């Protein structure tokens, strides 16, 4: 049985989408809520580059690498230190994430390596809901 069912959110952007808000704590202890899309097409966690300084990452904590997006090749900045994330509605759900920060990215993506290693996710598009079940 799912532990949490989340209604799609619009977040002021004009369409209902499968957004999940995680509370993320960076390696230095800085933390805050980050809204992101559930994205099975993303290998891992992708964050807009502006979140790196907010989470306390310095240039020494990230390594440039090449990746691929729908628009072609992109330079990503892979964190070399993990952050932790928790679903606010499930206070004991804390797990590590290893974000890639991407210049020009404007929406966080919760991909497979982090969130989906800890939760089974079912998209219910017709109901505009998704569910999370801890694994």
């Amino acid at each position: 049985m799912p532990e949490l069912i989340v209604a799609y959110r619009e977040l002021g952007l004009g369409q209902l989408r499968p957004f999940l808000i995680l509370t993320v704590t960076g390696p230095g202890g800085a933390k805050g809520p980050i809204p992101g899309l559930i994205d099975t097409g993303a290998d891992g966690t992708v964050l807009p580059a502006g979140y790196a300084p907010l989470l306390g990452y310095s240039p020494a904590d990230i390594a440039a690498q090449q990746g691929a997006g729908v628009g072609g090749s992109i330079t990503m900045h892979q964190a070399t230190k993990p952050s932790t994330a928790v679903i606010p509605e499930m206070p004991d759900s804390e797990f590590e994430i290893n974000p890639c920060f991407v210049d020009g990215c404007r929406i966080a993506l919760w991909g497979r390596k982090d969130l989906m290693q800890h939760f089974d996710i079912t998209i219910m598009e017709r109901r505009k809901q998704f569910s999370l079940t801890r694994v």
Partner: protein
Amino acid sequence: MAAVHQGPEVLEDLTKYAGSWVAIRDGKVIADALDSVELRNKPEVKEDDLLMPVPDSGSSAFLF
């Protein structure tokens, strides 16, 4: 059956902030800036506020 979680929601149309970062509290924009650090350093922004970049075309289709 698990409860359906509904919020938090953003109550404002963010399209007028396209390309900027916004800080949201209780569903409303309380500050905006061109970059994330400038936004975080504004005195009215608190740690628990939701800080997010606004896409250039939020109401358009997303392709990732």
